[in-house]
């Protein structure tokens, strides 16, 4: 099971790498924000899998919850900013 | 200007790399950093402070004064922002 999770994590890292293309080159700020929130979801899962590697999942859940929460808030804040500007 | 700052940056970086040569092996459990002060925190946290999370016990108890300073830093930042930006309310 542990090896399986390592493979999953590597695959997710690869996906994150692919999404980073949109973050770095994505035309305009909107694509970047969308890509960043997509990265957020993937890293959320990676974070919990790290918890399994350490055998202390309950410690990592709090972090990933905060992670999800603040990703959401940041996204909303950026959206509000663009709305008021446009 | 850009060129000058690049030079400064590279010099600093080279100096840092120079310092890295003598560092203990990365992640070595027997490095001095892990052997000198921190063992007490690991071994005694439950006995002395009844707190399983060492980070919390060190943060708020063993080195609690640092944390007081840190909270003061936060307070200073808040007061600074008020001083710099806030304008007085118009009465009425």
């Amino acid at each position, binding site marked *: 099971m542990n090896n399986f999770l390592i493979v999953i994590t590597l695959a997710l890292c690869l996906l994150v790498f692919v999404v980073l293309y949109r973050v770095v080159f994505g035309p305009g700020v909107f694509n970047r924000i969308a890509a960043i929130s997509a990265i957020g979801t993937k890293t959320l899962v990676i974070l919990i899998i790290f918890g399994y590697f350490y055998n202390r999942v309950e410690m990592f859940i709090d972090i990933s919850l905060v992670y999800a929460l603040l990703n959401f808030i940041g996204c909303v804040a950026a959206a509000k900013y663009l709305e008021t500007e446009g | 200007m850009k060129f000058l700052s690049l030079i400064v940056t590279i010099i600093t970086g080279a*100096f840092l790399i120079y310092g890295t040569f003598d560092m203990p092996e990365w992640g070595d459990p027997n490095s*001095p*950093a892990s052997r000198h002060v921190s063992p007490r925190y690991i071994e005694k946290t439950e006995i002395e402070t009844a707190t399983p999370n060492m980070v919390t016990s060190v943060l708020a*108890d063993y080195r609690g004064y*640092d944390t007081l*300073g840190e909270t*003061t830093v936060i307070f*200073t930042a808040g*007061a*600074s922002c008020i001083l710099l930006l806030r304008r007085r309310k118009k009465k009425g």
Partner: protein
Amino acid sequence: MITEQAPILIVIVPLMAALVTPLLGWIRKDICYIWVILALFVSVMSSATVLNTVIHNGIIHYHLGNWLPPWGIEYVIDHLNAMMLVLVSGTAFLVAIYSRRSIEQELPEQTVYFYTLFLLQVTGFLGIVITGDVFNLYVFLEIASLAGYALIAIGEEGAPLASFRYIILGTVGACFYLLGVGYLYIVTGSLNMADLAGILPELYGSKVVLVAFAFFMVGLALKMALFPLHVWLPDAYTKAPSVASTLIAPLMTKVAIYVLLRLMFTIFRPYLSFELLPMTKILLIAGIVAIFAGAIMALAQVDFKRMLCYIIVAEVGYMVGGIGLANSVAIKGVVLHIMNDVVMTLGLFTVAGIISFKMKSHNLTDFKGLFKKMPLTMAAFVVVALSIIGVPPTCGFFSKWYLIQGSALAGNWIFIVALLFSSLINIVLFFRIIEIGYYNLDASVSHGHDHDEGSVVSEAPVSMLVPTLAVAVIILLIGFYNQSIITNIIQYAVPKL
């Protein structure tokens, strides 16, 4: 019990008072002034108690949270600390008394938060001076810096930009310091100064320690505005509100030099600095360059406060070069000069504050005819100026004398030349001002006629005048009692070389 707990009261009373100040501001604004003075008075009394205890009973150790040193944080107060504590809290006390009218004029709306940050700034300085833990020092350095950024930024036109540059360079300095702490931690595993001093000698050959030392040096040089890294200082101090510059200018650089002394003589042994590394040469060259550059640039200024800023740069050169001389006479001179320089800079900036309070600007031409109009202020100014130049009965003479003696002992003649050159420049600078103030009476009278009666200048208000005169008196007192200060305090503060 009070004497036992006095060390903590020095820091914690201004801190707690700062927390209450915004709440008091809701009730009445005037209370804040009295409240600040009260808090600083307690702090001064506690530090005087501590100094007394240190002189009689030796070094004080205070364990915060009752944890023993390498694990917890401790205060270590020796003679040098105790002297610095009295200096810092005393300066802050005098500036607090002095601040009232100036603040009312310059920042009528922001008085409450100004006083809050004032107290926090003092807390930061005191915390830096008193602590015996390298990381704790960083935390309080940040408190002092943050408060300083804000206090400078609310000044006149151009102050925010100066403050922004100060933030960038100050953060670089603080981060370099933090990096140095990290490099020391990785090879020793300790953060306590005494503990580090015990462990480090075995590691002096290590490149890590060397890099740590270098980063400490660069970081502190940024904070103390040593010559090539001084670029933030003149703008920041010139454009800050006069009370803020009166508080920060005497203390910030001197506290950084105190940290440098701690670092070179307590954490690292002099052996590392002076025998393994060519620190003697580096510091001497840096000091000499700073003295020449500061003096020459001071000569070129037409703005009084800006001129004082370059004098500060030169004075930093004195002290750094003095440390570079590496003998006990010179170090004695350096410690004495830290003390004198705090007092002298305080005196200069209080006078500058009075001038800008009365004239609404701080150009050199504002001095026209001031001897007639505010004789007491100008008398104090003359005393301070004489002291900066180094005329015998004032305190400035003695520290310079020790420095010259030390450099003669070290056989370094260039430093003596630099000192004399700087004194010469100071003579030119201050006599020019005194001349403007004394002889240009007629011009100023006609000047006054042009503007009508409203601009007639009289003596400064009492709350500003008293601290200024007190500074002048202190300068003379230190001059008279310098021998007993040296035998009682500074002698023990100087490390054995």
